[in-house]
């Protein structure tokens, strides 16, 4: 008994259709990643302009001692730091998603610099404008080295959601040596391991529970918030 011959044309058609669908999928993937990089580049440019403007405003306030402009400056500053932090989180999650991690290295460096600039500015502005705000510097690293960093990050994100504009958080990848400023900062704060959380001048090494950080923030704030009493 003999079998029917294999319908090669059908297999070929199936193969071609499958390949086409795959190409569509890859094109979608490609346009996603270029949209991501585009977005990050544009936001980066905006942030650069913003900081130039803010630096000038801050200089103006300091030199003319016109601190009635303070509220406006601090408001803009807070907004920008928020955007910056969100974008930083995006870059990290995009890096996790992609196979071409190199595409993001330069962008990450750019944003790291931007964060450091804002951090400096925030410290100055706090002094000039006598802002009731807590600055947190948070050093993290890759999940492979630092298993607790993700959870520590989640705690800080939650604190930001709770304290809103009363805390300013700057997260830095402690092992990001592409940017020479990073080792300088880690050394000057004597950061030996990750996660390390610096709340104003108080350093917390290793995983730090939410309650401890809440207490620290509360003790530094002049205005006593509801969270601090509970």
């Amino acid at each position, binding site marked *: 008994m003999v079998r*029917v011959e294999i319908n090669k044309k059908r297999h070929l058609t*199936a193969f071609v259709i*499958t390949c086409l669908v795959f190409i569509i999928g890859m094109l979608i993937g490609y346009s*996603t990643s270029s949209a*991501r990089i585009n977005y990050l580049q544009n936001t980066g440019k905006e942030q650069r302009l913003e900081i130039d403007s803010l630096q000038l405003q801050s200089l103006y306030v300091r030199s003319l001692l016109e601190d009635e402009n303070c509220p406006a400056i601090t408001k803009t500053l807070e907004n920008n730091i928020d955007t910056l932090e969100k974008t930083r989180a995006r870059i990290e999650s995009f890096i996790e998603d992609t196979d071409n991690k190199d595409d993001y290295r330069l962008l990450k460096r750019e944003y790291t610099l931007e964060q450091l600039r804002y951090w400096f500015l925030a410290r100055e502005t706090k002094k000039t404008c006598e802002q009731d705000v807590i600055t947190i510097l948070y050093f993290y690293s890759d999940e492979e080295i630092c298993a607790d960093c993700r959870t520590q990050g989640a705690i800080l994100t939650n604190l930001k959601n*709770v304290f809103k504009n009363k805390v300013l958080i700057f997260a830095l990848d402690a092992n990001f040596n592409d940017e020479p400023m990073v080792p300088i900062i880690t050394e000057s704060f004597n950061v030996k391991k990750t996660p390390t959380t610096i709340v104003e001048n108080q350093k917390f090494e290793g995983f730090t*529970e939410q309650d401890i950080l809440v207490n620290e923030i509360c003790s530094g704030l002049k205005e006593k918030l509801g969270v601090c009493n509970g």
Partner: protein
Amino acid sequence: MELTTLIVWIAYFIGLYFSVFWLLVFLDKGAKDVLKKQATEFPFVSVIIPAYNEEGSIAETIKSAVNLDYPKNKIEIIAVNHGSADKTGNIMDSFRRDGVKVLHIGRNPGDRKGAAVNAGLKAARGEFVACLDADSFIEKDALIKMLPYFESKDVGAVLPRMIATGGNGFVKKIQWVEYVVTYLYKKLMGHVDCIHVTPGPFSLYKRKYIDMVGGFDSSNLVEDMDMALKLQRKNLKIIQTYDAVARTVIPENWREFYAQRNRWYKGGLLNVMKHKDMLLNSRYGEFGLMQMPMMIITALLSLVVFTIIYYGQVFKPLFRRIYDWYYTGFPIEMSVRKFFENLMLIDINFDRIFFIYLIIILGIIFVVLAFRISNLKLSEKGYRAPVLFLAFYPLMIFAVWCGVVKDLLTRKKQKW
């Protein structure tokens, strides 16, 4: 590229290829019967009903065979009591007045259903032989609808359409949908001679071909798959029909379902090993080149892909989220709100989502097609049934495969 990513891509490709392939077969050949005639000649037919502890359903099974629309002098029903400990034997004996032949045989260690069917075969005189599992019921007109397909000399077996019966539980609903979809799949497989199992519920065989392949394997976990492979080996045709219908009782709960599927899939793998010379052998056409490898690949695919996708995309993120919530005092409402406030289009990883949605859409297409063909109402078991099927069936199959692999690795003895 990471290894897991590569595996997922390959799996997507294979999955997509076969979905497209079967859709093309469907567009080409359809899924309903072309041959619309009933038997006009009546060759002698033997119906063998093997049973082991089936007192609950055996009476109805035998009744359905007795009531078959066929000249009484041209049909014999042979009920084989395979050493049952319950009342199966007594119930069988009570059908002697309807002309049913009853065989009581002992159960040797290592015996499975195949042994009982073989005993029935020894007593059977029919030119055609049908096996009817004791938990299945055949519709009156099935036999006269199936016989005309043997017109072509190289037809080894003709199969009825199986419909799952009874029950409305979660596991039953899912299986009910599964059987509807399986029919479509098997019909399409039949078009390219790729059917790999001739199921217990009323597969009709030409006797001389059963003898040619040496009868059933008496110790095989899934003797009906072994039989199909043996027929394929002789390049005989197996035809799936639409108009002939058999109903079968399906496992009631997850435990029974797991036990049944564990046996099917494990037996399936063992049978592929038993007939491994057919693997990738072009002498057996698409069956050797496509269907045999697929039986192994589906096992691997469902294991690897679901491990990667479910673990990587579902369980891991979920577990992490809960872990992080634990340390932040479960700010669920706030984090959900913030998530949607901050969500941007670019945050969605489209190339991953594209394929996941593609698979879901293809799944929906198959389910809808299968229901349109089946004449069964999608709403019969409530609209939730197909949704449950799409959501949980892959997970259930994955769990079964995990069990099979574990059993094979630990060489666990088969108990049922």
